[in-house]
């Protein structure tokens, strides 16, 4: 049986139609890297601005009319109600169009969709965040939530990597986290440059070096598919059980609600049953389906 609680979300449908977007207005744009921007936006509709809620890890479908629609993680913290954020890397037709938008421009927005992170899974435990590139945007809301409620968690490790120093996103967050003594923040790049003094190495390798303790721990992984595929074996080697490995996945999506068919991993749909999965849920479909 399908296990989605739609009832809660129905109030966010525009005119009762799940496919119809709401209008949001861009209020600020932050250039994260040469190809990634973070959009700060709010609903045009006042009622929604006040009522809209979501869970960390959930995503929404953003549209530019005439160009199409694509899913992005909501990367702001659910507790901050004044605006929403999403980070977009320029990779195709729609994201190119989004990057051409300026402050004050409108986008379509429908959501939130997906399951989000279930916080009770993490509480009282050590949490290891493993992120690559723009994959951090999907974990960011959770990380902030964890930091804001620091006492509820054990040891926190954040391992974040990008292809090069120029590809590191959310540098302002990275700095804050570096300086936070209650966290162990490790930043790495695949290839350094003349100014880079930090660590060099692929995320899975760095993870192996850091070797976090699997006891009473949960690892949360998000990044490009190739990174995810190489990270799971490392975690397994370190002694993590599949149920202790959590990931949030990205797939081509059109509907966001488990109908259009393309984002499945076996019988699970990333949009409907995910995007957050434990490795235990998806490991049977290991041969490249995620």
């Amino acid at each position: 049986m399908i296990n989605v609680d739609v009832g809660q979300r129905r109030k966010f449908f525009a005119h009762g139609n799940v496919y119809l977007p709401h209008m949001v207005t861009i209020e600020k744009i932050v250039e994260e890297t040469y190809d990634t921007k973070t959009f700060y936006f709010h609903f045009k509709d006042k009622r929604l601005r006040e009522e809209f809620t979501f869970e960390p890890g959930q995503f929404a479908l953003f549209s530019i009319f005439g160009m199409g629609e694509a899913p992005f993680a909501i990367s702001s913290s659910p507790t901050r109600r004044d605006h929403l954020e999403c980070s977009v890397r320029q990779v195709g037709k729609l994201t190119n169009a989004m990057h051409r938008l300026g402050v004050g421009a409108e986008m379509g927005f429908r959501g939130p969709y997906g399951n989000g992170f279930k916080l009770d899974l993490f509480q009282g435990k050590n949490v290891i965040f493993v992120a690559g590139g723009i994959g951090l945007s999907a974990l960011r809301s959770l990380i902030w939530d964890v930091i804001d409620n620091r006492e509820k968690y054990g040891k926190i490790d954040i391992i974040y990597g990008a292809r090069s120093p120029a590809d590191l996103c959310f540098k302002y967050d990275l700095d804050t986290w570096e300086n936070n003594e209650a966290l162990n923040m490790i930043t790495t790049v695949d290839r350094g440059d003349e100014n880079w003094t930090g660590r060099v190495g692929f995320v899975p390798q760095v993870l192996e070096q850091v070797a976090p303790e699997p006891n009473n721990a949960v690892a949360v992984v998000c990044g490009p598919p190739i990174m995810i595929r190489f990270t799971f074996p490392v975690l397994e080697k370190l002694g993590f059980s599949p149920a202790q490995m959590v990931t949030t996945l990205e797939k081509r999506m059109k509907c966001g609600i488990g109908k259009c068919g393309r984002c499945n991993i076996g019988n699970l749909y990333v949009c409907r049953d995910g995007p957050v999965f434990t490795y235990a849920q998806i490991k049977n479909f290991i041969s490249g389906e995620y």
Partner: protein
Amino acid sequence: MAGNKKINKRDIGKLLNKWSQGFTVFVPSREDKVTAFAKWDGVNTNFMEWYRNTVISPKTNFFPLMEEMFSFREEEDGYHTELPSSDKHKQLIFGIRPCDAKALSILDMAFKEGYEDPYYLSRRKDSLLVGLGCTNPYDSCFCTSLGGGPFDSTYVDIMLIDIGDELLIEEVTNAGRELVARTAGLEEVTEADKARAKEVKKSSYNKVTKKINTEGIQKKLQACFEDKDFWEKVSTKCLSCGICTFLCPTCYCFDINDDSFKKQGARFRSWDSCAFPIYTRMPMENPRSEKWRRVRQRVCHKYEFFPIDFDVIACVGCGRCIRQCPVNWDITEILNNLPTKA
């Protein structure tokens, strides 16, 4: 269950005329060079002579090839969206085959469970299915292997049984019963008619010779999911076109795209197919770029994944995918030859 009414085939036109009050009647048609269900023209009933099944399945009537989801326009105060005016007419599909009716019940689940799909469901609501039993199934039919049959009336509102010059009318649902009760001028069924109907049913059941063994199929597919050699071998001759999925009465995958000119346009949804590489293609990665993965997805979705969610195989055995395939790729051969673990 067995009906007590019948109608002479000559009078089908009259019957359809009566039913046209309150319904938009769709009948099998080959007007547009390919067989499909089209709006009845009010006169022609010669489909009774040629109709066996349509190439285009009646899913089109509820889930069309393309449809406008909403329109949008940019004005000074920003974008405005507008839903299309929903056509309020109730569809009556006359002559739907039992397999296609079952397929609609499968689409109902897919579009209703979890989030509801407003477009499909509004068309489907209050529609009426008048089934016509298959006295002459194709050699590509294998409905009997999937719990259906040429006279399976489970998913229709009214079932018609062709006993020669006349059609017996079986009312199945309340809606069907009401419609038949409201229809004047039907004749009473005799014992001889009933006996004849029984005979027709039996003989046509035996005409469905293509078979698959669905016993334990989910387990078998699960076991061979990783068997790349097998999937590569069976997928070699597939051309990755979308015929099988587009003509399939239970395939419901779709794509969403915008069509716009200057400051206005509309968002459309249209059929999509898991056979296309572009279907899952992302800018950096394509989880199903290889053909064997796509073929595996089509087979496994129908026979392994869909049943996990809905307890029913998402295939009704209509055989369109086999009949229309340009390379005669036959899903039954695949399913009957799944590797068993050595």
